[in-house]
């Protein structure tokens, strides 16, 4: 069976064609401009991963929201659970860029970090 998939690794957004999508061992990937596209397709079919970006409430700072992200990819299936956790955090300024906001979120081995300094 053939399947189409958009590679989201870079802004080029290659439209990948996947043959034998139902069986990872026989799966073949076409139309990727670089090898990352092939890796992406295989991952997407086995354990899709995403990066989360969001903001959290911050008090006593120059602004009310602190932008944050996961410092690596997390499994897509825990995406919304992590978003829930992020939505319920409240911080106090100052926070520096790259400060860890939550360590090892949901045991993924991934941290939530600040992407901006809010003083």
């Amino acid at each position, binding site marked *: 069976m053939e399947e189409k998939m*958009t590679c989201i690794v870079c*802004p080029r*957004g290659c439209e990948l064609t996947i043959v034998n999508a139902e069986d990872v061992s026989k799966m073949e990937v076409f139309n990727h401009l670089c090898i990352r596209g092939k890796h992406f397709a295989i991952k997407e079919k086995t354990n899709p991963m995403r*990066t989360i970006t969001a*903001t959290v409430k911050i008090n006593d700072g120059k602004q009310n929201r602190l*932008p944050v992200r996961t410092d690596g990819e997390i499994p897509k299936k825990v*995406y919304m659970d992590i978003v829930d956790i992020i939505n319920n955090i409240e911080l106090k300024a100052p926070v520096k860029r790259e400060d860890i906001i939550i360590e090892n979120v949901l045991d993924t081995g991934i941290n939530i970090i600040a992407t*901006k300094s809010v003083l």
Partner: protein
Amino acid sequence: MIYDLLIIGGGPAGLSVAKKAYETGIKNMLVLERDDELGGILNQCIHNGFGIEKFNKELTGPEYASLYIEDIEEKGINYLLGSMVLNIRDEGEYKVVEVASKEKGYLELKTKTVVLAMGSRERTRMMIQTPGTRPAGVFNAGLAQKYVNIDGYMVGKKVVILGSGDIGLIMARRMTLVGAEVLRVVEIEPYSNGLSRNVMQCLKDFDIPLQLSHTITEIKGNDRVESVVIAEVDENKNVIESTKEEVECDTVLFSVGLIPENELSTNLGVEIDNRTQGPKVNEKLETNIPGVFACGNVLHIHDVVDYVSDEAEQAADQVHKYLTDTQDICKRQIVLENSDDISYIVPQTIECKHSDIELKFRVRKPASNVRIILEDSEGNVLVNRKKWAVSPSEMEKVMIKGKMLEDIKGNLTLRLKAEE
């Protein structure tokens, strides 16, 4: 005091100009920013996807900005926040920039060169004339993004988004993550106007439907939006009456494109190209006024910030050449034209044939299996490049070698040719 360089705008374009200009040796410069912080639109673009081309890393908007801001602080480059440029006057050798600054009041600053880096603003509901009442709950997607990401203010709970530009797609995901229900994204064109990776990771990941060839024909509601009427359109974008459907919602976001912000340029006497809505520039990114350069979204709309930085660096290099009298000056002017299937091309003219030139353009409609052809008035072909796919949502680039320009005849035309 006379500045060597004034940079109008402290967003991605302005910051990149400042950094690069400093590296070429320009020290006597000032960045003017009307907001209370540097970084421009990047501050509210909290999503990732920036920096892949330039830093080989996937950064968020604030991170991309901070790489430049921290560098600018370190170099000690001067900037003035809360400072709105009111007018720029051309006095020949010098330009005078009139500024209203929160901190310093009214200023008139004299400079040898100016880089226009004001960016763009969103097209509005008024501009596309969406009928209906005028209740609360109708926002431009970028403004809603600022409310949500910077001010922490929730703009609505049941959202319909008109337009599938990148900001609209990004906001569909963002609204979902902050607890709103995004009912659908409606796009009048038969294709998405945003990057396909955003369709994938912002809509498909959250099962948000994208309705192509559809539009909002009416917004209803008295105090607050109560519903919208959505209908399909035919190939001529006429509404198909029988497809009208009323959808209950409390919020409508408009993501219907960006327009370069050029009031200052126009008042200064800079010629505007009505294809890009930005200044007409030559290969030096210099406008018709010597010493006035433009780059970034004020020049033409970019979809990847990394390319804004590249363009800004080119502008900075050219400012340096202008200031050190090493600019390439030739008498000849080659005009760049494009066929109807291309919506614009930048630069609009080429004066010098010595250096390699990067042409940037956008196609009008998606197409696959095409050739990009650049030829002169006598049909001599300079570029003939195959592309698997082109789309209006992605800026295309072609390089021409300086050598190739030496014996071209007349002007240059860029066109697409379908490959059998």
